[in-house]
């Protein structure tokens, strides 16, 4: 836990540091001080900004953890997409050529962990797969095992947190992001999509993507996305990035741009072909080569930027500060109520304000 706190330390500076300033979390503030401490103009170089370097060094040593869950019907390219996202053979499915995909009778979750490294930064990536989701004739309650798993991870973390002697660094197995694969039908959301996202949007950050989007023309894609957005709004489903968690104008502008484009239409592959003398990742068909990283062809690059390059830490933050806190409050209320004999007040997940959750600590 300590390492994570240091990572989230926001330095208060009124110089042109370029980083977003944030109200420091209450645990770190010394007793007695509240809110922002406005500094005066410095008449010399103090060296406060060197703390950024220290932070960077520490996090590089400690490494990151990221848990991503992929949900969708079989054959939508989940494993291929994960492999393409992290440019490594993380998921065994699409690597072994003789792998025979069998539709399993029940939904069971498989989690695979890998440690990948880039420029000295280590990341422990865990991919949680959900084979069997939505494949049966009767798919009622196929989301229950998934909801149970997510809550179990929160429970594990909570138990660790409540120990008297806590570990220096609690292993974080909570699901930071759930990528939900929609088949590219071109029409609207299906009932199973609505049911799943309604239930899971309250406990985890959902990123919906349109899978195998090379079957939609540009116009069809725009129409499809618009209809999906309408459906999401009509059903009250909140997907990542959620509007109410935008902290300031910059965030809002950035996230609005993303929100106008979800769900991202992606195409995944791990094969390379030659295009104009360059080697590109793509799918070769008789009528052309679909370049996966070309923004004009599909939105894989946008998804990758969102998940890995710009919002990875934010996903973890939202999971930790909002979803986990909601779960924690609910659980503590429940256990309080059972002790005192009162009925637990039901808490609406996902509606509590970020600051409200923080202030309850």
């Amino acid at each position: 836990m300590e390492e994570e706190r240091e990572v989230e330390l926001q330095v208060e500076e009124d110089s042109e540091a370029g980083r977003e300033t944030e109200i420091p979390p209450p645990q770190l503030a010394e007793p007695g001080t509240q809110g922002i401490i406005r500094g005066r103009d410095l008449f010399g170089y103090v060296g406060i900004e060197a703390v950024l370097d220290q932070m960077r060094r520490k996090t590089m040593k400690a490494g990151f953890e990221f848990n991503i869950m992929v949900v969708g019907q079989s054959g939508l390219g989940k494993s291929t997409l994960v492999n393409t996202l992290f440019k490594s053979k993380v998921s065994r499915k699409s690597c072994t050529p003789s792998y025979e995909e069998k539709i399993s009778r029940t939904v069971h979750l498989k989690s695979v962990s890998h440690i990948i490294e880039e420029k000295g930064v280590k990341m422990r990536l865990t991919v949680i797969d959900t084979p069997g989701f939505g494949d049966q004739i009767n798919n009622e309650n196929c989301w229950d095992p998934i909801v149970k798993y997510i809550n179990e991870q929160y429970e594990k973390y909570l138990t660790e947190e409540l120990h008297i002697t806590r570990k220096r660094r609690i292993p974080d197995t909570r699901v930071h992001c759930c990528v939900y694969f929609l088949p590219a039908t071109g029409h609207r959301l299906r009932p199973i999509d609505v049911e799943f996202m309604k239930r899971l949007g309250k406990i985890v950050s959902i990123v919906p993507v349109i899978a195998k989007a090379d079957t939609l023309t540009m116009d069809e894609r725009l129409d499809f996305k618009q209809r999906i957005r309408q459906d999401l709004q009509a059903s009250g489903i909140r997907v990542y990035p959620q509007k109410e968690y935008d902290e300031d104008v910059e965030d809002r502008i950035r996230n609005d741009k993303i929100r106008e484009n979800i769900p991202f239409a992606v195409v995944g592959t791990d094969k390379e072909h030659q295009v104009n003398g360059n080697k590109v990742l793509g799918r070769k068909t008789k009528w052309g080569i679909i370049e996966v990283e070309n923004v004009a062809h599909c939105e894989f690059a946008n998804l990758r930027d969102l998940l890995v390059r710009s919002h990875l830490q934010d996903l973890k933050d939202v999971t930790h500060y909002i979803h986990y806190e909601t779960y924690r409050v609910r659980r503590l209320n429940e256990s309080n109520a059972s002790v005192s004999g009162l009925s637990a007040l039901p808490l609406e997940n996902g509606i509590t304000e970020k600051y409200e959750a923080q202030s309850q600590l």
Partner: protein
Amino acid sequence: MTTNMRYKSRIIKTEDSEDKQYVGFATLPNQVHRKSVKKGFDFTLMVAGESGLGKSTLVNSLFLTDLYKDRKLLNAEERISQTVEITKHTVDIEEKGVKLKLTIVDTPGFGDAVNNNECWKPITDYIDQQFEQYFRDESGLNRKNILDNRVHCCLYFIPPFGHGLRPVDVEFMKALHERVNIIALIAKADCLTPNETKKLKDRVRDEIERFGIKVYQFPECDSDEDEEFKQMDKELKECTPFAVIGSNTVVEARGQRVRGRLYPWGIVEVENQSHCDFVKLRNMLIRSHMHDLKDVTCDVHYENYRAHCIQQMTSKLAQDNRMDSSIPILPLPTPDAETERLIKMKDEELKRMQEMLEKMQQQMHEKDQ
């Protein structure tokens, strides 16, 4: 024969012998052709599959009409409470004097719900209803203008996203393969590379065989067809299930206006054989096998239904008769009653035959004496 005749016969011998043996019924096909052109043809095609697989687009591309102009797509909320419906669109098409009354039976809502148990039941009920109506009309008094609404062919759309047949596909085809000609298609084939298409087709063919699904089999070529036709036929059979792409739009490709889909990475032409099997499907469905599909429906599926129906009716009658008998019989479950009735029938037959044999033997004895 006189020399004159012989001379004549040497020159026009062939025509002469032809005239002598020529009866003239070789023109029957032309007569049938003329009559049927006047009467016109009718064909009922059913399209089934999950929504969003391009069924309507394919139908429009196949018959070059727009049957679904004012369709409204339901949103997810409305779809949750929707059940499988059966909708019919009829269109009269005429080409070079030949009239075709085409009926498309659509099945919106199939496979869309969360719980799809028995979602094919409305479809099988519909097909049985059409058979029943035809059966009644056939057994009726006025048989002049029987309306043939029987479903001649069912195009089943398999999504290209999966790894072969899903449970709902298998169950649907098994419920329908004894009632209608099923042709399996791989929909939206423009999301597959050529390798993937081949793998998927092999996979689907294997699974169809493994689960014992009887899809429509192309009839064998006659041995006197020419080699080209036989080659085409062989190619057709190896190509199933057809990987199809449909399109409602016309785009410009290679200087021509073709039906196709425009992507940033290229143009998919619907009628290009190397892009998809649409042309093969169209040729098979309309140009070469339409009549055979109708024949198989009439001769095989309808006859099966009819035999089953009659058997049910007679067993019901036997049951009723049994109920009226004065001897108190314990009520038996129907299968036993059925076999008992058959045994009884066989016994009676045997008895009769034995009696006849005895009578004949007696007669022979009398004759001898």
